[in-house]
């Protein structure tokens, strides 16, 4: 008769082999090589519009370009931030303008699909990867944003239908305190690098490496001299990347920077761009021309939204256009999202007075010309 010890040991050996077989062995990290720099030929242009208003409060927009070239946006809206009626909204812009927004995630459908109580939703991130449209968004079961976790849905028909939400397991402590705000960066192996952050015990930026199969295969801290949140990342080339972080520490704050020289596998602190930050989200984009574009609130408040340009991969920055400004210092123009579409136009979405999402579209010529 086989003794229990040997039976248990044999079972353990089989289980160990199955775990070893399944353990991922990702390739060395590398960003997808950005397209060679090509100067913009678009004339000077600028226009601004509002997305359709769906509720009293709207915040935290995210932009992406669908495979057919149309622009898509996601944001959260409801009676107030953190309320249980906040939902994730989605709209597509075609030749006629922004379509009627549709709800793509609610606390109820997220709770049903994840088999867990969900009290509120927040920050969506929309990203088109080939024909697949990804949507990550934050949810909380109790408490404030510091105890959030991230959910993911995908659409293969341009946002018409979505897969059931799945919760990402990103923390060993009750799976809380991982949030998302800025879009991912495509990796050379077909996966994605998703910048995230935690703020439960310490405010720290982090980098999730997601495989082409959608599995998390790595999680790396992004260091910062002060509490760092909401990293916005741009790939400079296959190996080098720049991340700009919101300053979540004592004010007055400043934008902080991290760099990676190994495709996001590791990050180290870099010199701050020297731009102020009132604990407010920033957006970063590498333009087709090779320049870097930054959208931020540089003053001690969210009442001025400005663009900055860098010609040297983020080593130095110069102020460009002011997009919105309130001389009384009371308005809020915040949470920018940037995107450049294949026609060369640059799109900026941002929270307008916490009531609506504004969408500005402009050319690089508008950015570089001296303001009138």
């Amino acid at each position, binding site marked *: 008769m086989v003794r*229990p*010890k*040997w*039976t*248990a*040991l044999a*079972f*353990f*050996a*089989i*289980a*160990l*082999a*199955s*775990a*070893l*077989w*399944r*353990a*991922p*062995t*990702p390739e060395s990290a590398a960003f997808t090589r950005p397209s060679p720099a090509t100067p913009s030929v678009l004339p000077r242009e600028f226009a601004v519009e509002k997305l359709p208003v769906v509720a009293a409060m709207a915040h935290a927009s995210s932009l992406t370009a669908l495979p057919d070239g149309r622009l898509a946006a996601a944001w959260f809206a409801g009676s107030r931030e953190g309320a249980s009626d906040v939902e994730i909204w989605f709209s597509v812009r075609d030749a006629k303008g922004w379509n009627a927004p549709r709800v793509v995630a609610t606390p109820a459908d997220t*709770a*049903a*699909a*994840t*088999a*867990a*109580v*969900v009290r509120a939703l927040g920050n969506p991130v929309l990203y088109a990867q080939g024909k697949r449209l990804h949507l990550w968004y934050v949810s909380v*079961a*109790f408490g404030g944003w510091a105890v959030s*976790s991230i959910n993911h849905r995908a659409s293969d028909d341009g946002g018409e239908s979505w897969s*059931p939400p*799945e*919760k990402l*397991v990103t*923390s*060993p*402590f*009750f*799976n*809380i*305190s991982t949030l998302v705000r800025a879009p991912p960066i495509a990796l050379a192996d077909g996966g994605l690098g998703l910048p995230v952050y*935690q703020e*439960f*015990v*310490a*405010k*720290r930026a*982090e980098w999730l490496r997601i495989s082409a199969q959608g*599995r*998390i*295969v*790595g*999680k*790396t*801290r992004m*260091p910062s001299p002060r509490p760092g949140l909401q990293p916005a990342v741009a790939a400079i080339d296959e190996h080098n990347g720049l991340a700009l972080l919101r300053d979540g520490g004592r004010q007055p704050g400043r934008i902080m920077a991290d760099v990676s020289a190994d495709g996001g596998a590791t990050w180290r602190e870099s010199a701050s761009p020297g731009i102020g930050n009132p604990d407010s989200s920033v957006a970063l984009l590498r333009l087709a021309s090779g320049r870097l574009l930054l959208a931020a609130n540089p003053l001690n408040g969210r009442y001025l939204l400005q663009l900055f340009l860098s010609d040297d991969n983020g080593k130095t920055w110069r102020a460009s256009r002011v997009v919105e400004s309130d001389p009384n210092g009371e308005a809020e123009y915040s949470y920018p999202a940037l995107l450049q579409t294949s026609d060369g136009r640059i799109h900026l979405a941002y929270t307008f007075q916490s009531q609506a999402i504004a969408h500005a579209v402009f050319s690089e010529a508008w950015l570089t010309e001296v303001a009138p």
Partner: protein
Amino acid sequence: MSAMALYGRIAAALLLGAGVTFLPAPNRRLLGALAAVVALFSLAPVLHGWMGPPSFTLTQLALLRLVKPHRPPTPGNLAAALLVALASVFYPLALGLGPFDPFDLGYRPQSLLLFLAPVGLWLAWRRQEILLTLLGFDLLAYGLGLFDNLLSALFDPLLVLLAAIRLAGLARPAARALRARMSRAATP
């Protein structure tokens, strides 16, 4: 609903059912099983929302408790002590105390798995078949794709809390005996 969501809900129901077996009541096994079934459709999503998916180790222990409520807790004191010691370093680091997040090790766990191989042999040598089997099921749950992070399958904060409570329960009589010995020694 994903496999992980379904697992989280069932595991939360089992935990609640196992918790009920600690109540001083007759037929605790039946009561625990009933509580688990009721919880599956009531409180389990709340618990799952609050604590995320429990580790597979904790789920197995809950199941064992439900099946044999009168049996003493399974893992040994040494395992509980090691778990508490590990957690006292692991969780502060994972929650942001420092530049390194040890949770990352569980996403590509080859080195952890190679470390667990001799641990399994040691458990077999020490005739700790139950612990060895629990660990085997943890690895199988990871191998079958239920968990993306091996560390999530192995332990969680509630398991650590239960281990700490167990150690505290052991420490109390020892402290009492020590106090008695000291007071005897102090008596002239």
